């Protein structure tokens, strides 16, 4: 690469220095390009977090990237006499730098990678430093530095380097010793003394001293600027990030004297170092010596188990043919041909080992009875199907292998598998055991700032108190920070937001600039890297907060390196299905309940469940929009389920595919395609292009493309389409169609449709794999509703709805909800009364402890608890937990009071402190609560209930302590008021005429504002009343009026027009939304959701609980 610049920046921090860098990678590269620089280094603190992105982006921009890192190193120049000095007289260590558990406090040293050997050594050095101990700080040991220095060039560091620090405090002797020892760790000529001119009054002296020391040590010098931001004016951003990451207010931990850490042009750097031209020349020499080629584009698979004499292909092939025999009865010529075709491509692309590795993992899960399912485009492959990785037959559902693996584009295959969440750890343990812990690590994710986090970061740096910070970030929608002003100006819920005040203008300004800034490194939910060579030769590692070893690279980086990433995802629905089956088999017998994944998909009752939108808890089909679609689609076969899953996705929604699909399906609109050849390809979607696979089929049918070519066409249409590129593709498509005798106008129309829909289509294979799980869950819901609801509740959080709604839905289906009880409840939710009731588990009661749970279970095997005293004596329940249990009704009906009836909850609560004190004092309590006379308590509110509490009070306690409304739905308490207001209930809506004016009332379950093609905001509210769910659509004009109410309240009176027709489904189009407060007969507000419980022994004698409205 030709050189046309006089200086190369070799010490550069980006956002990926997490808190100590305000430069975006793209901006750095762009600015360096503007300066005519052809080389640029990236040296973030303690890692390679942004290195791969930088490497790829720089090369794309025609720039040579130098990778490196600024690491913290243990002290090199400690002399014997300094050890004897008191700590305050020793050379002070700089503040810790680095992210999370890779942060360390030590002297800085800049390391640059010369070649691939250096890259591997730096990865190893970083990994060794960061993961050698989960507790020790991440500081590079000199011995490790010497061991891993080959292929690296070291610069002595910024003023926080050991030499720099010593010079700053006027101890050149100490600096000299440090330089000598550090230089000894590297090959001759690979250690440079780093000079920085930061335009402080001390800079000339600092540089002159270091230069003199370098001369005396015979070390070369090099000039850098310790770049932390691209443009001079971005220093404010840097200060804010530093302050926020150190949890300090401005000026933050460094108190920098000026703002000179920007990417200065070569001429400026030369001018600063006019007295040391050799220092600038050295940057060019170093750049010339650094030539890293990571060999991107090749793949590196972990080693699969291959017996002697076999090859990975032969092992895969044999397994696949065996699988074909099992999956297809009878084996057809189509399936044989398809398998041969796929195996040949897999061999040609060199991917047999990848398939074998995935197979090993799913085989383990199958052997252990761990439920799993493959998902994604892997469902397009018959090989994945016959190996048991995926569950949908690709031939039956017209799934195309080329959509998964395109032989024309050698890309790493990606097979995602969902495992039973409850047993995912067993799979992970197997992977570590099978491949070795030194070959496995988790993938990182980079979390970036959104509007909310950016405002919080800026406000914290400006020194605002936590309450003010909360107020500033509350009620901001989840949007990008650069949209903050737009959101504040246009979103009704932000109309009275405090950020409108002029005193917060600096916060707003900084927050906007923080848009998309990497905030911290997270751990991917289930992504694992598996390598053949030790993983630390590929990627630096560190401990994640959750205690696992994680790569510093995210999934895109891993893919770019050509490493295998396996997504071992946990799916709670699998756990729920497994548990439902177990509960159902326990009740009706093992043989009575088939394996739901093996069901034939032809049960009309299941389709009735789906078509009637009775799908709370059903995988992928339960959300409000999806339920609306279910009623419109009226599914009657498995293909309809696949379509339902595919249509309610951002792409198809944005392309407005649903309406034509529904209209054509129900014969309202004629199915028409521009060319008859398209009819076959689009037969299962009535001529609408819904699936990505259909783009391939149409291109094949009309223009005669083979499937690989057709997939390339689809990809070209989907990703980053330039106008010129589209013109070229269009020309090619039409030319090929013309060759096949298609009229030009028809070909152009076909292309127009492909172009319009290709980017929005959904992967059918993914939908088909999900549909298998959806059908299984719908079947279980249909036939074992109590078991299904109990299993869903046991595996929360999952799905679209809160546990409260799942429980309410069960009650609406005639399943009784029984409060937890110390003599009846298990730890988890259980089915009672022959499938007609669900007993709430004790685990979910507030203040419950594992010890108390075990004590209850253990004591109950001896004999049931007789009364409160007996319970306290035998379990030694903590006061808070005992109070919760009493209030939730877990001790209702136990014992006998003076009134010859079981004591009320108030009486038990009044006795509790005295009983606890007696037990603590004497070790036992009286055998009967009557021995201790309770103090004065509130009069019995409801004599018909054993608790003595009114329904409102019971309900409030239930919502507070288990988050459920067991007694009744809160709106049942306001039924007479609602009737007086002429409110229509959810179960009556279906009987009303389309376009009727209605007034409904409901508690908010969800509020969503998805993206629409028009760009207008529409809010979809899912409300619940005592009789069912209400789907409310609030269009932009109504939202302008109601936005603030929706955000700030939880229960609403909605007036609007009913939409009730087969084409559009059932919904209410809101005209007004007003807050509604549920009150008891005495006028007290009623709690509507789980809240923060009041303090121990506090509210037990109080009212019905706090009012719910958030104000």
């Amino acid at each position, binding site marked *: 690469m030709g050189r046309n610049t006089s200086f190369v920046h070799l010490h550069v921090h980006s956002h990926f220095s997490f808190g100590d860098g305000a430069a975006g990678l793209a901006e750095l590269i762009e600015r360096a390009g503007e300066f005519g620089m052809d080389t640029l280094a990236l040296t973030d603190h303690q890692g390679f977090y942004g290195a791969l992105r930088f490497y790829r982006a720089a090369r794309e921009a025609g720039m040579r990237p130098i990778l490196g890192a600024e690491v913290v190193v243990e002290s090199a120049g400690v002399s014997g006499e300094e050890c004897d000095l008191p700590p305050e007289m020793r050379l002070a260590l700089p503040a810790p730098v680095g992210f999370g558990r890779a942060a360390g406090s030590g002297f800085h040293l800049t390391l640059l990678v010369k070649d691939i050997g250096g890259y591997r050594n730096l990865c190893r050095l970083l990994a060794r430093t960061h993961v050698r101990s989960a507790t020790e700080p991440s500081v590079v040991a000199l011995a490790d530095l010497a061991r891993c220095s080959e292929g690296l060039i070291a610069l002595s560091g910024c003023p926080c380097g050991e030499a720099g620090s010593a010079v700053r405090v006027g101890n050149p002797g100490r600096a000299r010793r440090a330089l000598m020892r550090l230089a000894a760790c590297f090959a001759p000529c690979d250690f440079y003394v780093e000079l920085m001119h930061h*335009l*402080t*009054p001390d*800079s*000339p*002296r*600092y540089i*002159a*001293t270091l*230069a*003199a020391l370098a*001369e005396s040590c015979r070390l070369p010098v090099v000039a850098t600027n310790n770049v932390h931001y691209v443009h001079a004016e971005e*220093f*404010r951003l840097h*200060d804010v990030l530093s302050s926020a990451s150190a949890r300090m207010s*401005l*000026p933050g931990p460094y108190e*920098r*004297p*000026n*703002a*000179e850490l920007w990417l200065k042009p070569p001429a400026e750097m030369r*001018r600063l170092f006019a007295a040391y031209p050799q220092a600038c020349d050295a940057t060019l020499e170093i750049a010339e010596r650094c030539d890293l080629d990571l060999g991107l584009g090749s793949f590196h698979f972990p080693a699969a188990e291959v017996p002697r004499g076999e090859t990975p292909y032969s092992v895969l092939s044999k397994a696949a043919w065996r699988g074909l025999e099992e999956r297809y009865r009878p084996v057809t010529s189509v399936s044989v041909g398809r398998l041969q075709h796929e195996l040949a491509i897999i061999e040609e692309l060199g991917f047999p080992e990848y398939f074998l590795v995935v197979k090993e993992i799913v085989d383990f899960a199958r052997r252990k009875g761990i439920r799993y399912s493959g998902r994604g485009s892997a469902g397009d492959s018959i090989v994945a199907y016959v190996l048991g990785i995926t569950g949908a037959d690709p031939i039956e559902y017209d799934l195309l292998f080329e959509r998964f693996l395109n032989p024309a584009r050698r890309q790493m295959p990606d097979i995602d598998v969902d495992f039973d969440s409850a047993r995912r750890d067993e799979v992970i343990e197997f992977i570590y055991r099978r491949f070795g812990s030194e070959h496995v690590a988790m993938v990182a994710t980079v979390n970036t700032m959104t509007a909310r986090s950016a405002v919080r970061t800026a406000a914290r740096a*400006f020194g605002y108190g936590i309450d003010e910070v909360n107020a500033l970030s509350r009620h901001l929608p989840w949007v990008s920070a650069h949209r903050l002003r737009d959101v504040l100006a246009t979103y009704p819920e932000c109309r009275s937001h405090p950020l409108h005040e002029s005193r917060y203008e*600096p916060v707003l300004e900084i927050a906007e600039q923080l848009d998309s800034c990497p905030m911290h490194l997270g751990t991917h939910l289930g992504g694992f890297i598996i390598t053949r060579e030790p993983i630390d030769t590929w990627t630096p590692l560190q401990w994640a907060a959750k205690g696992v070893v994680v790569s510093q690279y995210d999934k895109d980086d891993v893919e770019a390196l050509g490493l295998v990433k396996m997504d071992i995802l946990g799916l709670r629905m699998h756990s729920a299905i497994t548990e439902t089956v177990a509960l159902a088999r326990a009740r009706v017998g093992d043989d009575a309940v088939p394996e739901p994944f093996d069901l034939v998909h032809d049960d009309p009752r299941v389709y009735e469940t789906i078509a009637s939108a009775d799908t709370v808890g059903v995988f992928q089909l339960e959300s409000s929009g999806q339920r609306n679609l279910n009623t419109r689609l009226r599914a009657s076969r498995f293909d309809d389920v696949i379509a339902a899953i595919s249509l309610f996705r951002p792409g198809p929604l944005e392309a407005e595919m649903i309406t034509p699909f529904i209209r054509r399906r129900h014969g309202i609109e004629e199915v028409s395609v521009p060319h008859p050849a398209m009819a076959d390809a689009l037969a299962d979607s009535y001529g609408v292009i819904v699936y990505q696979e259909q783009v391939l089929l149409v291109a094949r049918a009309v223009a005669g493309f083979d499937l690989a070519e057709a997939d390339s066409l689809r990809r070209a249409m989907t990703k980053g389409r330039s106008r010129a590129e589209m013109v070229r593709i269009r020309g090619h498509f039409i030319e090929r169609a013309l060759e096949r005798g298609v009229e030009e106008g028809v070909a152009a129309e076909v292309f127009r449709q492909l172009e319009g829909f290709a980017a929005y289509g959904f992967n059918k294979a993914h939908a088909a794999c999900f549909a298998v799980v959806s059908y299984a869950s719908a079947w279980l819901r249909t036939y074992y509703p109590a078991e299904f609801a109990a299993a869903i509740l046991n595996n929360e959080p999952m799905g679209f709805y809160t546990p409260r709604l799942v429980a309410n839905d069960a009650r609406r289906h005639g399943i009784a909800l029984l409060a937890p009880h110390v003599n009846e409840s298990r730890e988890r939710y259980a089915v009672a009364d022959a499938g007609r009731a669900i007993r709430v588990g004790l685990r979910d009661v507030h203040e419950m402890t594992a010890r108390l749970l075990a004590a209850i279970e253990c004591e109950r095997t001896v004999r049931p608890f007789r009364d409160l005293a007996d319970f306290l004596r035998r379990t030694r329940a903590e006061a808070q937990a005992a109070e919760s249990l009493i209030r939730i009704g877990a001790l209702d009906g136990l014992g006998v009071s003076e009134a010859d009836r079981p004591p009320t909850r108030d009486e038990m609560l009044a006795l509790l402190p005295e009983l606890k004190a007696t037990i603590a004092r004497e070790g036992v309590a009286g055998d009967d609560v009557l021995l201790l006379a309770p103090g004065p308590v509130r009069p019995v509110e409801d004599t018909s209930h054993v608790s003595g509490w009114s329904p409102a009070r019971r309900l409030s306690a239930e919502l507070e302590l288990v988050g459920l409304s067991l007694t009744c739905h809160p709106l049942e308490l306001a039924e007479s008021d609602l009737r007086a207001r002429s409110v229509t209930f959810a179960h009556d809506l279906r009987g009303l005429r389309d376009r009727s004016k209605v007034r409904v009332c409901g508690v908010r379950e969800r509020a969503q504002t998805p993206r629409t093609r028009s760009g207008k905001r529409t809010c979809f509210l899912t409300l619940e009343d005592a009789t069912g769910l209400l789907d409310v659509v609030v269009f932009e004009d109504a939202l302008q009026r109601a936005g603030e109410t929706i955000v700030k309240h939880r229960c609403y009176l909605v007036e609007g027009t009913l939409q009730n027709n087969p084409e559009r489904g059932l919904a209410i189009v809101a005209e007004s939304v007003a807050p509604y407060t549920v009150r008891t007969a005495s006028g007290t507000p009623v709690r509507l959701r789980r809240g923060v419980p009041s303090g121990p022994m506090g509210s037990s004698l109080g009212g019905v609980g706090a009012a719910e409205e958030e104000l």
Partner: protein
Amino acid sequence: MGHNAAIKEHRALPEGLPLDLFDSAEGRRPIVLDLLATPWLVRASELRLPGDGGLGRRIGEAVAVSWDAARHSPVAFAWRGRVYDVTSVVQTWAVEHAWWDAGQRVSRRCWRVLAGDGGTYDLAFERLTGAWVLLGMQD
């Protein structure tokens, strides 16, 4: 010769001038500049005692400055009716302080210059106001 070349190369006792180190003002300037930049010497003006403003004089008055765009440095400044030629720029630095507090904020670029009268002056360009200020006289 490395650093402080002027000092090392200077002939301390030129012929005919036994009691003077320098033969002219021009001959003296490189030595002065070397000394000002020498890391192991501390100038008297920088010595500070507790509660003391130092031996230099703080001035803080507006001055008119002639600017050399090619050299990125001042060439002369006018102060109290007298024009001072800048013979050398000794040092330059920048200050950015308390940007988040309008009342406390300082943002300036400073030049320490050797003037024709032999004095060392600190000039500052105030970025916020666009004005030049003579911060002080050092020696």
